[in-house]
């Protein structure tokens, strides 16, 4: 790897804005998100449903449904080149080959009328122009790679004939088939049983190490994040509210929302006590509160929070928090 590549981030999202123009008004799903991923790094994007984490990923991949979704501002730099201004055909060639994506529910993300071998093989025939036989052979290899038993016999089977864990393995095989530089995994284990979740996450982490890929792991599950991620970005109402290296964030959150999330994990040593929950609901994206979007639910909210939107304050090297009172929050946690 050459020197500039090692320094420059693999993917650099800068001030991304996405909105959905619906009949009921404009929903501002992403409001100035910035994050970056270096080669070989795992970034976890954490947030509730509707926080804009998946929409950001779709905008990066260029698979936003438009209408109604539109990218209204910002840059998505992949190896220094803006994906948003790139020609459609060029961008299509990058998809799958250089940047690829793992979807949440493999049953709905796999074509029900194509055998899994054919779908996997398509990766090779679309991008590398392989013949049918060659791509089929590569597909079987990939299925073995993600440890699907009897891969050769099962290549002709259809997605509904596989169990949930096996289907997600096939999804992973498709995403990793061409050894991309960056993989975006959108809640890859949410649809799976807890026991299978661990297997699939371990497989993903192992393959990521082997191929030295950058990984963006989108999730709402704090448990999944802790073992695999290097850094975490917490999203709320279409903004990043805190970024930090994973262990520092767990040890001492610098944003009340993160603190609330960590506090609402059920813990064995709190058995019998009331489970802490963040009060209220996430804001409607058509009507985001003025000031800090978290202020109606925030235990620390004061007058300034209702009027001034906090920028991302640098908390420590590699750490930032969008809270006026990050210092107090950090002190309380520590």
């Amino acid at each position, binding site marked *: 790897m050459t020197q500039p590549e090692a320094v420059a981030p693999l993917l650099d999202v800068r001030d991304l804005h996405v909105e959905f123009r619906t009949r009921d008004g404009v929903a501002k799903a992403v409001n100035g998100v910035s994050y970056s991923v270096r080669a070989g790094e795992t970034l976890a994007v954490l947030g509730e449903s509707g926080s804009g984490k998946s929409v950001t990923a779709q905008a990066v991949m260029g698979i936003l449904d438009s209408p109604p979704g539109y990218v209204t501002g910002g840059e998505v730099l992949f190896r220094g080149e803006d994906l948003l201004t790139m020609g459609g055909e060029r961008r*299509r060639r990058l*998809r799958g080959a250089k940047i690829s994506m793992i979807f949440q529910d493999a049953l709905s993300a796999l074509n029900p009328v*194509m055998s899994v071998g054919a779908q996997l093989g398509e990766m090779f025939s679309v991008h590398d122009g392989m013949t049918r036989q060659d791509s089929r052979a590569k597909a079987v290899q990939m299925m073995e790679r993600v440890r699907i*038993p*009897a891969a050769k016999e099962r290549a002709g*089977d259809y997605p509904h004939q596989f*169990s949930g864990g096996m289907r997600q393995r096939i999804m992973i095989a498709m995403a990793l088939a061409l050894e991309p530089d960056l993989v975006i995994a959108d809640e890859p284990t949410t649809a799976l049983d807890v*026991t299978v979740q*661990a297997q699939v996450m371990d497989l993903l982490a192992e393959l990521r190490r082997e191929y030295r890929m950058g990984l963006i792991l989108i999730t709402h599950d704090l448990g999944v994040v802790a073992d695999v991620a290097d850094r975490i970005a917490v999203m709320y109402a279409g903004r990043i509210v805190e970024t930090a290296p994973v262990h520092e964030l767990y040890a001492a959150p610098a944003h009340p929302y993160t603190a609330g999330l960590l506090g609402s994990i059920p813990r064995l040593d709190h058995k019998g006590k009331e489970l802490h929950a963040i009060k209220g609901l996430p804001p409607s994206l058509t009507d985001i509160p003025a000031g800090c979007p978290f202020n109606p639910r925030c235990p620390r909210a004061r007058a300034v929070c209702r009027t001034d939107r906090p920028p991302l304050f640098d908390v420590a090297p590699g750490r930032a928090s969008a809270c006026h009172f990050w210092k107090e929050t950090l002190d309380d946690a520590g």
Partner: protein
Amino acid sequence: MPEPEPREPGSLAPDEAVTPAGGGASSLATSDAETLEGGPIPGGTASGKARSLWSDAWHDLRRNPVFLVSALIIVFLVLIALWPGLIASGNPLQCDLAKAQEGSQPGHPFGFDTQGCDVYTRTVYGARASITVGICATTGAALLGSVLGGLAGFFGSWGDALLSRTADIFFGIPIILGGLVFLSVVTGGSLWPVVGFIVLLGWPQISRIARGSVVTARQHDYVQAARALGAGNTRLLLRHIAPNAVAPVIVVATIALGTYIALEATLSFLGVGLKPPTVSWGIDISNASTQIRNAPHMLLWPAGALSITVLAFIMLGDAVRDALDPKLR
């Protein structure tokens, strides 16, 4: 059709079997998983070969008596349309006025019409016109409608709006009135103007269905996933969307085939469709209608043949719909 997987806690598939609890601590989990996964394969392979939507549908159809009966009738109709000589030795245009309107007699089971032509022979030969018009018009309307509707549904925007409004206009044309006007301008009395007219009025129905099912299919995750993994528009349409959107089009087209045959007969009955010397049930019904009191057999046989044909295609369409979309049952 994808079957929803049962997810009772008791019936974990082998790959979902237990790993050491707490996924966090275990780099061991993967190796454990490997040994566990060596067991029997979950899913449907135990019961036999992989079954696609189409082989599933075929499996259902073979057991459906409605399908078997209607398919038999249709095969028979197609055979006599191709080779009417198989069961009728006479010539439908060779008539003997001396025998006009006579009833059934040996060698002429259905009797004779006003011109003294053998009704049996004419009924058999009439199948050719009906089947040809039906199949050609359906093929034309289905191709035109599904290509236009599919593209409109996939690309959306102004092309979609334009097509939908154009289809609305064609929907607004009263079919009989339109036929009277169109076919009195485009003369000839042969099959092709009739086929052309039916295609012209038939494609909007198919295009609406095709557009709708493409719009639905386009929103599926697997289309988005295929796009995210680098598939272009052509591949998305042909490999991922079309196979998942074609079933409703096939169903509607099969049912439409029956109604197109009835439409051809109606137009011929009104004197603007097929014209003699072409042999058509519609023409014969038209000739017979004035003689219904003196010679009901002249009406009975061609009308019966027409009804059975139309019914067979509509029943086939129903059976195909049941097989392709079990949810509708």
